[in-house]
């Protein structure tokens, strides 16, 4: 999956990829004071195109709000919700709106799920539907944080650590390994990294083609930008 950290006040963005063995579960958000945890499990392509490397995507997300006793499991097939022992099952194939005491859900058929946790956060999960007979690819999910301002200062995780900004500086551009792109030095979190100017796609408006977001790409699974390394964020279960 590709991660994008947009910083509109700087009119810039950071991006990195995390690739690991399909089936691995990563922690994206952990905020002990609010009791919110978001984990995601990655999946691979059906088949690797010869000569290409394996790409991974998120196939399942687990969202927990301990304070309200809410657990949400979102996969490419279904959406399972449990709140204080009550269970409900939603499908991606119908539009559905659920307004609860502590959580609102809105499913847009075959497209997206918006999750609003009362007095805290709002997430958007996008379903990327792939033609079933596609020989290489399969359905996958995207996860977008729409509102994060009520998270505590302790919030962490692969995405959560950036919710309160990040300090960085970028030097002059210079030719990189890839003749089509330019590199620069980035100074961030006490590290000096070689980063590459590129772009990633934001699929919120156009789920099919996305919108290009220019960004500084941090190589090696975000090493140097992330606190620790990406494997530090591996967890044993979705919840």
């Amino acid at each position: 999956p590709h991660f994008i950290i947009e910083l509109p006040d700087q009119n810039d963005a950071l991006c990195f990829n995390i690739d690991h063995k399909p089936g691995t579960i990563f922690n994206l958000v952990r905020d002990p004071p609010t009791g919110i945890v978001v984990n995601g499990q990655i999946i691979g392509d059906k088949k690797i195109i010869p000569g290409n490397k394996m790409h991974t995507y998120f196939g399942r997300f687990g969202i927990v709000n301990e304070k309200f006793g809410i657990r949400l499991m979102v996969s490419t097939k279904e959406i399972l919700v449990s709140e204080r022992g009550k269970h409900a099952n939603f499908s991606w194939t119908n539009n559905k709106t659920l307004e609860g005491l502590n959580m609102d859900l809105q499913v847009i058929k075959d497209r997206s799920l918006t999750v609003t946790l009362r007095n805290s956060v709002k997430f958007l999960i996008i379903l990327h539907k792939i033609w079933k007979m596609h020989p290489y690819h399969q359905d996958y999910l995207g996860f977008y944080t729409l509102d994060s301002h009520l998270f505590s200062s302790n919030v962490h995780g692969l995405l959560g650590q950036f919710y309160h900004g990040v300090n960085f500086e970028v030097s002059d551009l210079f030719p990189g390994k890839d003749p089509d792109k330019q590199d620069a030095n980035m100074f961030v979190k006490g590290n000096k990294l070689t980063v590459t100017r590129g772009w990633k796609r934001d699929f919120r408006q156009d789920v099919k083609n996305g919108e290009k977001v220019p960004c500084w790409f941090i190589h090696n699974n975000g090493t140097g930008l992330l606190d620790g390394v990406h494997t530090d964020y591996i967890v044993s279960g979705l919840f």
Partner: protein
Amino acid sequence: SLSQIEVQSMRVDCKVASRFAHTVMTTKALNTANASQEVFFEVDLPKTAFITNFSIEIEGRIYVSEVKEKEQARQQYESAVSSGLTAGLVKASGRNMETFSVSVNIAPQSRVTFTLTYEELLQRRLGSYEIMIGVRPKQLVQNFEIVVDIYEPNGIAFVDVNGTFITNELLPLVKKTVTDKKAHVYFSPTLDQQKTCSDCEETLVDGDLFIRYDVNHPQDIGEIQIINGYFVHFFAPDDLPQMPKNVVFVIDRSGSMEGEKMKQTREALMTILSELHEDDYFGLVTFDDTIESWRPFLSKATPENVTEAKEFVKTIEARHMTDINKGLLFAVDMLTTEKSHSFPDMSMIILLTDGRPSSGQRDLSKIQENVQNAINGSMSLFCLGFGYDVDYSLLDTLAKQNDGLARRVYEASDAALQLQGFYDEVATPLLLEVNLNYPGNAVTDLTQSHFRQFFKGSEIVVAGRLQELETNTFQTEVSANGLGDQFVFEGVAIAEEWDSVFPDQEYIFGDFIERLWAYLTIQQLLDKREKCSPEDKENTTAQALDLSLRYNFVTPLTSMVVTKPETEDEDETLIADKLTEDQREDTTEPDLSALYAPPQKAGSVYQVQGLKPQNLISSYFVDGD
């Protein structure tokens, strides 16, 4: 373009899947001089193609193009240029090509890479599809490559390669590999092989490369391909008996036809008359400001009648003014009067003219209205326009309004051959009133699915979207009137396991059928604008524009804004348009466009401190590539 510009590589990469061709032309050049120089990038592309992308890369910095609504691009462009001329980057080139050209100033010892991408749906004519690649590097190229890959799931019948520059020395260098469903053409002459002689610096590689091929055509419902929620249906049964037809040739003999045009018309008619099928009925109508016909009624194409008609053709001389309206109405009347059980069902008019009406009804919209009302869907009108000053848009509209098509006939030595070639395309009708139906609700957003006639060697193409991405089968029904009775074919379209047909060809599983659908839909919407009411025209234009922008096609409704570096402080913006037929007529020197945009500074220093301001919303997200 200059001796101290070294063209390091030129690569033409063309991928064709199911007749939809995607071509990328990449040229890399180095300025070896010690001073800045202008480097020119000029390529020819088929006029039926839509440009989809263009970029210039100079020393790692890439300038990309952007497709915008034409008027919006024009306004941006005009507001920035207070005076001076502006430049169209695309101009007509020859009969079938357009030239895209741009130049950029390159610093000493600097490299530049130009990349142009265009797409087109290849049309089947006289039993084959043709890929046409303009190849004019103007100088020897270190790494020169043309790579064409064709993927046709129904099987390739044949592939022929030839080129205007393919001499006996170059011919063995064209490598062609054809397997059941794939063809690969590769041409990569070395520097020495490109030279006209061992000590020369001139290149042999200068001209057009043509690749003609055909596929196997199923004789029942045709060939249907389904990928990623879109489908395309090809229908081209060649194995059917020919239908007889009534054809009236309406021949302009006005003064402006005098000389070569009249001579070529007579020559072509002599050949065409010889090739009439004996079951056909035909008539000859000549017009200037008066109308004369060989006979006032249709004649069967017996050898005796054909001989007599040829004698008449020899007597046609140019004179006087042009009354297209009266000439056409006379022909319609002739065909309508004769229509009875003893005559064939299919009737067509072939209009040969060079000129704008100068006598009788001269109001073009009135002529169109009169002809359309008279024909009233009962026959097809084909128009052949002579000369660069022909009012081609009138002929184009007349043809489109009446189920036919228009073609230019270029006034060159082979004009008679052009006329004959056109006639051959429409000489052999096999089916009438062809309908491609998809019962049920599986498909939507269909392109045109009813066709008045189907000619041998051509192909009917219908594309559409599936209601559900998961749909991999749907009902198909084809009905038409053949020589005997009406026939109906029914069948089920089934998505193929493409990976087993074309293993490891990622391109195949992309969006090419969707783009084919968009291309065809745009083309048909643009044609529809010619014949619909003013209210519908607005809606049709909006749909075509929306699709053009969505799929990044440079069509007559959009412009591609090309930014290129110009000076230290300013970049220059140019505009590439799709030529309309009216613009193709204009052979005068094109305008030169220049629009100045603020520079994009590379190498800025970014410093980010503290929290984001409250009024700005950050995004943190994770998604697939």
